């Protein structure tokens, strides 16, 4: 584990308590981290494929811890209180669209992205780190 990754992991510990608390609410057993597959790199320079997207998001500080927790809390609440039978991916899709409508967006290297999708990517990164 290199120094950079250790540093990030130290930060992780203080991060999304709420998110982790709610993680059990994720629907279905296919939510295991391994199911997410390998995390993508993102906007990295050539030959920097090891730069993970989540890490990029994380380090870019586009979301404060508070925002991150708030967005993820909203996500987990939505999972928890969704309509019976509603699929998680549809819930995420709805949340993401609502973000765009409500201007709950972040700009990362020019990309206009929903905070929910960014938070999920960060969570993804954190869980796999």
């Amino acid at each position, binding site marked *: 584990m290199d120094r950079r990754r250790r540093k990030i992991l130290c930060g992780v510990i203080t991060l999304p308590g709420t998110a982790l608390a709610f993680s059990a609410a*994720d*629907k*279905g057993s*296919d*939510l295991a981290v391994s*199911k*997410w*597959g390998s*995390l*993508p*790199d*993102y*906007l*990295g*320079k*050539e030959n920097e494929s090891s730069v993970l*997207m989540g890490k990029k998001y994380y380090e870019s500080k586009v979301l404060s811890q508070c925002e991150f927790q708030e967005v993820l809390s909203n996500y987990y609440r939505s999972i928890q209180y969704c309509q019976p039978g509603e*699929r*998680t*991916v*549809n819930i*995420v*899709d709805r949340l*993401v*669209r*609502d*973000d*765009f*409508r409500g*201007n709950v*967006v972040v*700009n990362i*290297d*020019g*990309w*206009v*992205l*929903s905070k929910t*999708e960014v938070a*999920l*990517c960060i969570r*993804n990164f954190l869980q796999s780190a």
Partner: protein
Amino acid sequence: MLIDSGDIPYDSVINTDVCIVGAGAAGITLARQFANTNIRVCLMESGGFNLELPTQNLYKGSNVGWPYWPLDSSRIRFFGGTTNHWGGNCIPLNDDDFEQRDWISDSGWPISKTDLEPYYRAAQPVFGLGQEGYDPVEWQSDSMKLLEFSDDLITSNMFQGCEAKRFGAVYRAELLASSNLDTYLHANAIDIQSSENGKEIVRIKFACLNGNRFTVNAKTYLLALGGLENSRLLLASNGVQPKGLANGNDLVGRYFSDHYYFARLGLMVVPEANPNLNYYHKKIRVSGREIGLHFELASAVKKKKKLLSTRIHISKVPWRAYSHDPGKPAINRDFGEKVASKLNSVWQSLSGLEKPNKNRPESYGELSSANLYSIGAWIEVNPRKDSRVYLNDDKDVFGMPRITLDWIIANNEKRSLMTSLNYFARQVGANGIGRVRLDLDEQSPWPWQGGGEPGLHQMGGTRMNDSALKGVVDKHCKVHGIANLYIAGSSVFPTFGTANPTLTIVALALRLADHVKEIQSG
């Protein structure tokens, strides 16, 4: 009758009812309205029927403002005028382009879109177009569906492509066959002379490159020289008024603008080929007509956010071409491909929450250019008094001062463009169409160098306003304070919108012709 001005006797005096100076879109349209009436008309054209460099060189001038094309190549000086290099896209101004918008200084026309509607309709056949309107909803069919935005913040708008776009070639025979109309070639207007009190034009002096000179005396004079040259001729005609004809209030040449097109403002990645997007990135044929679609912010959004108009276009551009555009910020050549595949991964991650959903985009198309679009935009420019055309010390072969163009675009335009693009980006996300990357941000240099160019839509300089203190011409295009001088063309536009101006130029010319006919008939 066709007359080469170089062949008529030196110092001739030609008497007529109406003298139209300039045979471009406006001048030819005006002339056609008088054809085969009992009104005697002279149509005066500087060039011949083809491009002649000595004549074209008369357009030379200098630029000191926002980047612009060389003045002698940004317009065409022979029969047909600038329609000789026009792309043929017809689109009316929007309703709100005519309105006074309190967040845009000096905005608004003294006429409304409603006033011009009959003439817009009458202009359609001039371009060989039918009576179909410009609401893209009405053009929808099984073979063409608009992209739907759920929140009514983004609308689709359109232009119609015309076949009859080279007015000189299309209308030459008709004009030459008209018994009451004389067409003079190689006739360069060099001086408009007014009565001593400056309230009436008594003659216009013409010169030819072969040395010939002559005069036209008319009851009514219609200037149709184009967005730059109308101002130049008025400013240079300073025999009675030292600051130039009709320039008592120092307005001639001011409030100049063009549209500016930014070709590379960002890109849009869509998860899967969206058939409706295919109607937006190129001209398409619908019901036998050629049209093009683009996006605009809804009028209510522009009002709420106090924005200028922005016309957003998308076009398919291969990643390689995109990443190699020298005007773009430096990125590595595989950047776009990486982004495409990474966004793909984002959604794969999200989809991975459950088993793959067939209705959920699982791929952003890998490296397929079918799902990648570059984003460009035409921007509206704020009318500015200091954005202007003025005479400089250089002179052409007739001794007529050349012009300097000082076109101004400032941060207001940048703010409007960025805000409009952000709305577009959010709506693309909100409607599940894809994701947008914007290359222009607050730190970006301005002028933005990402593939931009002026639209060759020269407007302003003799703007229309009810008050002589704020405009050169009134709502009938009559020059304030001068009984028999009118101006046709885009130089009268007081506010510019984003629409290609030719359709509006022709509609205004049709309206002006009606007005002059009324006056001529007493």
